[in-house]
């Protein structure tokens, strides 16, 4: 009985302490050899729908609840690109805001209707438009976050 209790305490404390170690790589990490600036990816998005590339940027926003997306600052002013993974595939910690993230993957284009576009702009306190917009999301296969 005493032995079992000790064993449980050892296993439990090992698990709880090991999770404090910061996970810097997700799914094997990013491929640093194919780095492309976010501004270049967003300027010619069609080039990155199939061929994987690696983007880099400061983490400026993270999904608070499930950690399933994070927003990276572009090298161009006011521009960002959101990287999104299916729930649970990778979990990005909120504590990583302000760190630099590298993500390898492909770009996805989401065509919004005019109503969806204006609804989105309204929620951001921006004026409505007459043309629907395309939303870009980056789907990563590997991510590396450095401080």
């Amino acid at each position, binding site marked *: 009985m005493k032995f079992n209790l000790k064993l449980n305490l050892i296993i439990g404390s090992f698990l709880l302490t090991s999770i404090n170690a910061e996970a810097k790589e997700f799914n094997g990490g990013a491929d640093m050899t194919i780095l492309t600036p976010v501004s270049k990816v967003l300027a010619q998005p069609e080039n990155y729908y199939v061929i994987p590339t690696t983007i880099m940027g400061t983490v400026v926003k993270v999904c608070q609840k499930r950690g399933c997306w994070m927003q990276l600052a572009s090298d161009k002013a006011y521009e960002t690109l959101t990287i999104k993974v299916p729930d649970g595939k990778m979990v990005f910690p*909120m504590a990583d805001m302000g760190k630099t993230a590298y993500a390898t993957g492909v770009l996805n284009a989401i065509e919004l209707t005019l109503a969806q576009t204006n609804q989105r702009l309204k929620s951001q306190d921006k004026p409505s438009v007459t043309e629907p917009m395309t939303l870009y999301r980056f789907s990563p296969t590997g991510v590396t976050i450095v401080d």
Partner: protein
Amino acid sequence: MTLIFAISGIALNHIHQWNSNYDVTQTKVKIALLATKINQTDFEPWLLTQLNESGIIKARFWQDKDTYKLFIKNKTLFVLPKQNLVMIEEVKPRVLLRQLNFLHLNEAKKAWTWFSDLYAFMLIFLALSSMFMIKGKRSVFGKRSIIVLAGFAAPAGFVIYYAS
């Protein structure tokens, strides 16, 4: 182990109503002359002094023309120069619940995957073997089969109702 999955299961089911991973607090501070100071070279140390913050600024980013974001450890400073306002957003991981959710969602991967798989197999064994422990009239093939069927019926009912 059962408690880890049960407690975090409830926490994760209700994460849209209550963030069980992080305690996020926002504090607003009015600072005079912010719009003037933001263009000066000593702006960042001056701002940290005004806010009584001792952290090191890790990164900075203009979110839009009116919002400048500064990142220090576990805090984001939203600087709104036109309003002479700084909003401090602090993120604190919740004690224990964050760790339980971490394990439940298998963020650890590696050895934890195998360890939790082993536990799951043991639960499967427990569930299946318990059905055949009692022989005779009170066995699972007698009247008590209703209890087993009820166990299958509840999740099946939800699937039929919600997934159809």
